[in-house]
C-alpha cells in the first residue's frame, strides 16, 4: 500500500533519471522527428512524383513498415544495421553500432513511413494553381517544391506533425526491449536495483503523462491560432 511509499528513492535517483534517461529520450525524439520528417518528405515526394516505379516502391515501403509492430522493427534494425554497415563500408565483419545510433536509425526509418503520409496529405491539400503558377514563373521541380509547395504543406500540417512527435516521444520508451537507458530504462534500472517498482513506475508514468499533456495542450492552442490566421 501507499503507507510505505518511499519518496526518497525518487529524489535520490532524480539526477540519474533526468541527466541520463530523459536526455537520451529527448535527444532520440528530436533527432528521430527531424530525420523522420526529412526522409518522410522525400518518400511523399516519391509517391507523388508521377514516376510509376518510384511511387510503387515508396508506397510498398510505407505499407510494409506500417503493418509491423514497432518492437519487431526495433529488433530488425538492431540486428540488421551492423550488417548493412559492413556492406556499406566493405568491412570484413559486421560493424559495431552503438545503442543510440541503432535506435536513432530505427526510429527515423519507422517514423518516416508515418510522417510521409502526413506530408503527402499536406502536399495534396495545396491547390493545383500553386505549382502551376510556380511553373509559369519558370521555377523547376525542386524550386517549386522548395519555395512554393513544401513550405505551405509543412505549415498546414504542423499540428499533425507535432501530435505525431508526441506519439514518437511515448514510443521511444520501447527501446526498453534493448535494455537501453532511456527515461523508462533508467527508472526501471533503479526500480530493480532498490526493489522499488511501485515508486519508480508511478513516477515515470507521471512524468510521461505531464510532458505529453502539456505538449498536446500546446499543440491544441497552436491549432486554434493557425486556424484563426488562415
Amino acid at each position, binding site marked *: 500500500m501507499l503507507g510505505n511509499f518511499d519518496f526518497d528513492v525518487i529524489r535520490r535517483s532524480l539526477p540519474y533519471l533526468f541527466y541520463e534517461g530523459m536526455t537520451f529520450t529527448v535527444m532520440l525524439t528530436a533527432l528521430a522527428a527531424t530525420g523522420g520528417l526529412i526522409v518522410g518528405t522525400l518518400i511523399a515526394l516519391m509517391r507523388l512524383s508521377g514516376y510509376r516505379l518510384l511511387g510503387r516502391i515508396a508506397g510498398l515501403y510505407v505499407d510494409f513498415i506500417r503493418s509491423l*509492430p514497432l518492437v519487431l522493427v526495433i529488433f530488425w534494425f538492431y540486428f540488421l544495421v551492423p550488417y548493412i554497415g559492413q*556492406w556499406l563500408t566493405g568491412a570484413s*565483419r559486421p560493424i559495431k553500432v552503438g545503442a543510440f545510433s541503432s535506435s536513432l536509425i530505427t526510429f527515423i526509418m519507422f517514423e518516416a513511413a508515418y510522417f510521409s503520409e502526413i506530408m503527402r496529405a499536406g502536399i495534396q491539400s495545396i491547390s493545383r494553381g500553386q505549382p502551376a503558377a510556380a511553373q509559369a514563373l519558370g521555377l523547376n521541380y525542386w524550386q517549386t517544391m522548395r519555395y512554393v509547395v513544401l513550405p505551405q504543406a509543412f505549415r498546414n500540417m504542423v499540428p499533425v506533425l507535432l501530435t505525431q512527435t508526441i506519439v514518437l516521444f511515448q514510443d521511444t520508451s*520501447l527501446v526498453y526491449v534493448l535494455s537501453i537507458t532511456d527515461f523508462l530504462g533508467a527508472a526501471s534500472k533503479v526500480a530493480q536495483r532498490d526493489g522499488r517498482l*511501485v515508486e519508480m*513506475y508511478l513516477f515515470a508514468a507521471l512524468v510521461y503523462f505531464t510532458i505529453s499533456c502539456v505538449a498536446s495542450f500546446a499543440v491544441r492552442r497552436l491549432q486554434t491560432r493557425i486556424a484563426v490566421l488562415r
Partner: protein
Amino acid sequence: MNYHWNWHIFFEPNPMGTGNYLDMLLSGLRLTVETAVLAWIIALAFGIVVGVLRTLPSRTASWIGFAYVEFFRNMPLLVQLFLWFFVLPELLPRAAGLWLKQLPNAPFWTAAIGVGLFMSARVAVQLQAGIGSLPRGQRMAATALGLTTVQTYRYVLLPMAFRIILPPLTSEFLNTIKNTAVAITIGLLELTGEARSMEEFSFQVFEAFTAATVMYLLLNVIVVTAMRLLERRVAVPGYITGK
C-alpha cells in the same frame, strides 16, 4: 554478407520439446491473435461508452469522457502495462494483490486488458468524431419523433456513426494487433516474443524475424480484406458511405 542462412531451421525441433521452430512461431501467432481479439473487445466496449459520453449534452459526462481519453492517451503503452503488471498488485489489499500475482497466464490477461484500455481511448476519439460528423438534424429529428436519449443513440446516431468510422476502426484494430507485441516486456510469448526466443536458441536471427514479419503481413491482409467485405455489406445505399 557472411551471415549463415539456414531456411531449414523451421523444421528442426525446438529446445522446448513442443515440435519444431515453426510450431513455436505459430503458437506465438495464435497468442497474438487471441490477445488482440480480447483487447479489441475491451477497446470497443469501453470506447463506445466513453465516445458516447463525450457527445452527450451533459457537461459532466463529456468532462469524464475527456479525462478518460487524456489519461490513457498521454502515457506510453509500455508504462501502462508496467502499471497494471507490477504496480497494481502492490496497491491492492494484500490478499487481492497476491491473488493477482499468482493468476495463471497473468501476462496474457494484463496484456489484453492493458492494450484494450489503451486502444479504447482511441476508439472513443474516433466514435466521437463519427457522431460529430452526422448532420445535426439527425439528433433533432430523433428528438422530434419522441425518442429518448438512449433510443436516439441506439437507433439513429450510432448505426450511422459506426458505418462512417469503419475505415479508421480497421486501422485501430490493426494497431491493436501490433500493440500486443509490446507485451513481450511483461513476458508474453506472442509472435514477436517467440521470434525473439527462436533467435536466441538457434542464432538464426533473420530467418526468425522474416517469418514473424510474413505472419504479421498476412494477418494484416486478412483483417483488411475482412473489413472491406464488412464495409460493403453494411453500406447504406445513397448515404455518405454507400454508393
